[in-house]
């Protein structure tokens, strides 16, 4: 008979093994479709009869070239960058400021105001799209990048305000007190002292906003036509001979995924923590 300690050690080892087994199976299920699409993006059409996980006979970039120039993914890519970069930059600045306003000050009606801003976290674009469309016409910015940027800045501002407010509330107020006593204005306190201190929260926010904006579909589908379309919409609306060309579609899909995945791999900690705690709070 085994002694009690030995039994416990065995049980621990068995449980660790079981844990790894379960996690590996589900990890494979999560990643295999992605692997399949990457491999397919390098194949020729006749190779599609092979297993999706077989290696391509020859690693060629032809499908990527077709997607990039033939299916005009270069245009969509450019458009994506032109939309995502301004959205993230403007939203970060505005929500840092408002997060500071909500986090550092206490004023009458602040909770009501915050609640109104938080409505943006819950309301889908479907519920605002028609008046938005009209508004863009009235402002004369329909069919420009601004029509794609401003609504997304506004929705990102909802989440950003929320996120940065929590961040500023956690910063010890002694720091602010000391700076103000030394004659620093609140504007200076925000940008010169608290902004550098908020790096972790800012990184998470940048990463989350980047992903959401990069993947945004509905707004772009309605507001953008032709060259203004961003990558996901360009991919979804692919017509003509490329629409039935699985390898070219696969190459296009990889192009849509790659920027987000690269950023995700670099910042996965902040990413997961951000998504989870953002959800917990909202």
């Amino acid at each position, binding site marked *: 008979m085994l002694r009690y300690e030995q039994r416990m050690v065995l049980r621990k080892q068995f449980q660790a093994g079981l*844990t790894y087994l*379960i996690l590996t199976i*589900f*990890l494979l299920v*999560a*990643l295999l*479709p992605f692997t*399949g*699409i990457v491999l397919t993006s390098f194949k020729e059409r006749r190779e599609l009869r092979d297993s999706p996980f077989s290696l391509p006979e020859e690693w060629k970039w032809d499908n990527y070239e077709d997607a990039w120039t033939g299916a005009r993914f270069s245009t969509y890519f450019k458009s994506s960058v032109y939309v995502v970069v301004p959205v993230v930059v403007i939203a970060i600045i*505005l*929500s840092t*400021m*408002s997060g*500071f*306003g909500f986090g550092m*000050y*206490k*004023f009458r009606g602040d*909770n009501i105001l915050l*609640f109104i*801003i938080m409505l*943006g976290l819950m*309301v*889908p674009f*479907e*519920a*605002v*799209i*028609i008046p938005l469309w*009209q*508004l863009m016409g009235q402002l004369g910015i329909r069919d420009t990048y601004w029509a794609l940027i*401003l*609504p997304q800045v*506004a929705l990102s*501002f*909802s989440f*950003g305000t929320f996120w940065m407010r929590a961040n500023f509330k956690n910063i010890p*107020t*002694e720091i602010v007190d000391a700076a*103000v006593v030394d004659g620093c204005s*609140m504007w200076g306190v925000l940008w010169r002292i608290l902004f550098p201190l908020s790096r972790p929260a800012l990184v998470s926010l940048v990463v989350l906003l980047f992903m959401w904006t*990069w*993947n945004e*579909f509905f707004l772009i*589908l309605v507001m953008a036509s032709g060259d203004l379309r961003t990558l*996901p919409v360009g*991919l*979804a609306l692919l017509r003509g001979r490329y629409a039935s060309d699985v390898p070219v579609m696969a190459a296009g899909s990889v192009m*849509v*995924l790659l920027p*987000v995945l690269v950023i*995700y*791999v670099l910042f*996965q*900690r902040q*990413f997961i923590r951000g998504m*989870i705690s953002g*959800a*917990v709070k*909202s």
Partner: protein
Amino acid sequence: MFKKIMSQASNSSSEPTVKHGVEIVSTPSFSERLQSLIPWRRRTSAVPFSSGSQALLFILPGLIIYVVFVLFPIIGTIRYSFMEWTGFTEPEWIGLDNYRELMDDEDFIKAIQNNFFFSIFYTIIPILIGLFLVSLMSRSRLKGMFIFRAGLFVPQVMSPVVVGIIWRWLFDYSGPINRALSITGLQGVFESVGLLRRVTPWLGDFTYAPYAVGMVGTWVEYGLCMVLFLAGIQSISEELYDAAIVFGANPLQQFWFVTLPGLRQHVLVAFVLTFIAALRVFDLVFVLTRQGGPGRETIVTSILVYKNTFNLHRAGYGAAMAVVLATIIVVISAGVFWLQSRDSENA
């Protein structure tokens, strides 16, 4: 309910003001009263933490954009939901007629039903998978966990359009899934037991399409649930399990009385995230079954809003649908938020 949200928010927000010390004016009623008794204190307040006008200066730039591009449009949509309007002619006020029509609209009822049907796959199944697996797993920290955490989360960061394209390819009539079924001989097995009639074009089949779309939802969401619950289970004190074992609890009882209560918050978060995803789903269905086909078997509310507004030129009616959808989402979010705040008050 709102009062509760407010009071909770203000409770938490009053914390930092305590740290400010006497010089700084803050608004909690007690200190306000104190300051009115001691007038010189007010004069020495160097830091304008209670100056609402200055706070507004920081909030205003973003707020203007938010009001113009989100708040006004929300109000506009609500207004249009009471109108008969093609989108380009003069709108006509018809009161609640759109909402009355919604209640008898078979397409709309089907869409809402589908949203809730998909929520089984988006919400219930991933949470059950997550709970079941996590209960089997070791509670101690293991090496290399971050790889699994990062990998399981990948479907969450992928563009739903790409997810749709990948799965449309996998589910294709001559796609990898059907070929795998026939190569392994499972196709024959399934046919002989009556599970399948023939080689199935999964997403084009009236019977199987809703399940196929639902399955993709499960694939997207289960990683989120596992990651959440894995984080949660490690925060449960090992002593609770020891105590349960001392009292003779079997593994099932341990799960029921220790694990599940310990994961309550995490389950709630997983629920609200995945449920809202199921209610809002648009791009995935748009790509996967080309806007809700075959027939209207996989149609969802957001697709119907899009179709009514832009294809059928019934913008007023589409607005009414959008209002109903948004209301459901806001009510559920607020409800869960309320549950959560009540939960943390009790804790």
